[in-house]
Each structure stands twice: as structure tokens, then as C-alpha cells.
């Protein structure tokens, strides 16, 4: 694999015994010697440290100096209330396209005089180009290339980070703050991709490895790879871009209506005004023909991405497809997400074709595993 990029933690991953795989153009750790299953359970019982430096960090600085102008500019690309996002707070958003599909999902934070966004690794070049093309008249779009990104997740995350950065325990879920550590600024948010309480921490490249080592030295903190990251986020019912959401799925179909605040909906203060608003707001009123739902297979066989779903045990046409699926170590059973006709609701029985056999699965509420955010 030539041309794979690496993060600043590459040597540390090797030292920790990681098995490396190509992911979104980067050579990344899929697991450490502990293994995916134990890494997953360790994150839920103690704390896990994830290298997410492949993700894109971008600053949006208003040319006028007024944060409202950056917020209003970004609102032309996302169906989310950015203007109403208070200073020191972060929220989930998605870039939509003219067809009402999703180009990427992201986090956006209000940091007083500018916005800070974090986008997916696989989409960061496209996202940056998209923002530069549409926002540059009002906003300076500045990719942050000299900082790494770590996620620290799990019940022992707070104590571990508090030991290094006194004060983080006062943060609540989706708070953001800039805090010092050994003379450098850490950009910290209380958020993550596991359903656990935890933090995401942007740290300058030069101090990143020392900071990661300091976290790993704290009680209960273990390095966790992409394998467990995927099973943790699936148990938490969170979407993986390019799988559970993509350029063809709308936020309503994807069951992400909670991320579209009243201000941007029909009748709201700034209704519409984002790409694909016609379709998306129309689906709020009329409903979408299909929806992303959770599935719990009745047996023990995992149902993987691409598995076709039928209404009955025999015959009939496919009614949908699984977009993510696997085994949930904490729920001790298989779980999946699928797009299914909207008339099928929680408790409905469907049939998934696994190795030419139809196996029953029930539409189930998500998250599959209860979340433990610090509200």
C-alpha cells in the first residue's frame, strides 16, 4: 500500500502492537493485542483512547469578525441551527446536497470569534473544497493541519483527563473549551462516537505523542482500534458516513430529524435556505418512503452490511438492505441498521437473507446500548 498517509501517532501504534490497516487513505490501527471484543468492553467498563487524527479539523473565521456571519454562512450548507448555537457549545450537523442527500456529517462548535468543525476523514478534502467554494466571500476557511485528534471514551475518561487537565470535569455533554496542558492549548469537547461519556481532544502535533502517553499512563486507559470503534458506535445507534448515510439518503430518511432544529424547519425563523430544502422539508410534512431503523436478529447470526431484507420468510421482492451490521459485545448479540419502508415500525418482524437462508429480525429502538452522557 503505497501513498498511505500516517498520523503523528504511527510509531506509537506500532510500539503498542497495533495491527494496521488502510482506512480513508491512512494507515490506521484496527486493533491492538487486546483484540476487538475486549477493547470494546474495556471502553465501556474503563476508558479507551482512540487516534482520530485522520479526521478533518477546520476553522471558519468570519471576515467581518462577527461570529453571526460565520454561523449564517454555514447555515447555507447545513439544515442545522448554527446561529442559535451558544458560545462554548457543539452540535451535530450534515452537509446536504441539492437532491436532499447527505454529503457528510460533522460536528460544529461555537468558539466565540469563530466556528470549529470536524469532518470525516474520507470526505475532508471534498468538504473543505465545498466550504471554500460556497463560504469564502464571508468566511475564511482554514484547514487545521498541525494538530492531532484523540478521543478518550468511557466511564474512567473524566478522571483520566481531569488528572492532566484540571477543570474538564465541569464540562457537560457537547461543551467545548480550550484548556492548557504543559504550555500548549488543547481544544476539548465532551463528546464522542461510542455512546459513552468522554472527550475529543485536539492537540498540537509536537506535543501529541507525549499527551497520548500521559493519558495511557492513567488508570484504566487502554488504546482502542477502529474495529471496536465501529462496534461501539453501532451499539450507540450512530451513523457511519458512506454506509448508513450517503449522498442519496436524506436526513429524514436517516432518522436524523432531531438534528434539524425548529429554526430551520417550515415555519421556523430561518426555514429552508440549505441545499435540498425542498425535499427535506417536504419529507418532514409528508414523511419519507423509507427510514433508517435498528434491527435485532432473533438468532445469533450477525447480519452484515449489504444483507437484503424481505417482508416474509419466503418469496416476495426485497424491501430494504442492511447498511451496517455485526455483533455487539456489550449487548451480547447481533445488531444492524437498515433502510426499510416507513410503514414498518418498532416490533415489526422482517426476514434477512443470510447465506441463502431467510432469518428473522425485529425492528428495534436505537441506541441498542444505553448511552451514558454527562448532561
Amino acid at each position, binding site marked *: 500500500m503505497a501513498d498511505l498517509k500516517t498520523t503523528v501517532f504511527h510509531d506509537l501504534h506500532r510500539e503498542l502492537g497495533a495491527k494496521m490497516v488502510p482506512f480513508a487513505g491512512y494507515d490506521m490501527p484496527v*486493533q491492538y493485542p487486546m*483484540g*476487538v*471484543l*475486549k477493547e*470494546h468492553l474495556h471502553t465501556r467498563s474503563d476508558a479507551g483512547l482512540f487516534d482520530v487524527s485522520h479526521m478533518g479539523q477546520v476553522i471558519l473565521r468570519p471576515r467581518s469578525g462577527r461570529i453571526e456571519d460565520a454561523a449564517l454562512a454555514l447555515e447555507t450548507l447545513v439544515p442545522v441551527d448554527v446561529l442559535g448555537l451558544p458560545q462554548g457549545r457543539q452540535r451535530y450537523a450534515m452537509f446536504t446536497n441539492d437532491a436532499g442527500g447527505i454529503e457528510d456529517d460533522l460536528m460544529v462548535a461555537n468558539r466565540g470569534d469563530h466556528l470549529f468543525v470536524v469532518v470525516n476523514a474520507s470526505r475532508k478534502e471534498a468538504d473543505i473544497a465545498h466550504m471554500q467554494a460556497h463560504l469564502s466571500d464571508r468566511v475564511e476557511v482554514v484547514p487545521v493541519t498541525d494538530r492531532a485528534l484523540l478521543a478518550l471514551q468511557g466511564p474512567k475518561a473524566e478522571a483520566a483527563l481531569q488528572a492532566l487537565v484540571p477543570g474538564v470535569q465541569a464540562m457537560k455533554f457537547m461543551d467545548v473549551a480550550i484548556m492548557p496542558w504543559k504550555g500548549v492549548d488543547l481544544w476539548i469537547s465532551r463528546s464522542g462516537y461510542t455512546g459513552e461519556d468522554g472527550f475529543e481532544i485536539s492537540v498540537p502535533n509536537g506535543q501529541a505523542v507525549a499527551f497520548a502517553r500521559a493519558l495511557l499512563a492513567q488508570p484504566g486507559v487502554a488504546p482502542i482500534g477502529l*474495529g471496536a470503534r465501529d*462496534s461501539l458506535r453501532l451499539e450507540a445507534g450512530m451513523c457511519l458516513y458512506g454506509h448508513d448515510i450517503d449522498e442519496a439518503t436524506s436526513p429524514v430518511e436517516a432518522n436524523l430529524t432531531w438534528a434539524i432544529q425548529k429554526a430551520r424547519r417550515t415555519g421556523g425563523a430561518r426555514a429552508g435556505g440549505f441545499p435540498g430544502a425542498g425535499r427535506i422539508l417536504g419529507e418532514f410534512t409528508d414523511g419519507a418512503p423509507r427510514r433508517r431503523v435498528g434491527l435485532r436478529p432473533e438468532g*445469533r*447470526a*450477525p447480519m*452484515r452490511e449489504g444483507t437484503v431484507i424481505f417482508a416474509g420468510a419466503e418469496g416476495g421482492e426485497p424491501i430494504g438492505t442492511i447498511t451496517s451490521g*455485526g*455483533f455487539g*459485545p456489550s449487548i451480547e448479540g*447481533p445488531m444492524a441498521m437498515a433502510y426499510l419502508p416507513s410503514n414498518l415500525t418498532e416490533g415489526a418482524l422482517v426476514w434477512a437473507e443470510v*447465506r441463502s437462508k431467510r432469518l428473522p429480525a425485529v425492528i428495534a429502538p436505537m441506541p441498542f446500548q444505553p448511552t451514558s452522557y454527562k448532561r
Partner: protein
Amino acid sequence: MVMKYTEEHEWLRVDGDVVVVGITEHAAEQLGDVVFVELPEVETQVAKGDDCAVIESVKAASDILAPIDGEIVAINEKLVDDPALVNKDPLGAAWFFKMKVDDLSVLDSYMDEDAYKDLIG
């Protein structure tokens, strides 16, 4: 007792007039934590290369192929209840199935332990 190995990382052990089939330590390690095992039905006639059993780990699903022509005469139900046994004791308690074969000399064509060790490097 002689162990033979296939290129699909299965081990075969002759036990009286039956052949016991499992997966190697190397295969179990590569698969990662096994979370699901599906076994064939007893008395099934299988031909070499048929899909015989399924193993799913946290990462992916893999098929176990019949290593030789024959009849499935026993299956290890313990694996269905406790798939993690495959990682704990792949060469022992985690055997998959036992086959009755017409011609045991077919086993001669498979690798011995040294040859298998060369294969996995």
C-alpha cells in the same frame, strides 16, 4: 496421532475411523474473537470443497470447507453455545465436526505440521 493441515487453515486429525476437523491457531488468531458458529447437520454427505460450516468473528464471516468427501457423523454443539471456545482452544475443545471418509489415504495429500508452519511463515 497425526495432524494434517489444509491451505484453508483447517486441521484434520484421524481418530479411529473418523476424521476430526477444526481450524488452526493461526486461523483463529487472524479471525479475531469468534462470535457465531454454524455447523452442518449430522448425516450430511459432503464433497471436498463444499461449504460445511460458518464462523463469524467480530470482523467478518468465513466458511469452513469440507476437506474431503464423506459423511458428517458428529458436530461440536458446544461451539454454537460458546463460540469463543474457537479462540480459547482451537486445536482441542473447539473441534468443528467429525467425518467418516471412504478413503483415508486422501489425507496424505495435505500438509504436515512442518509444511503448514512454512505456509504461515
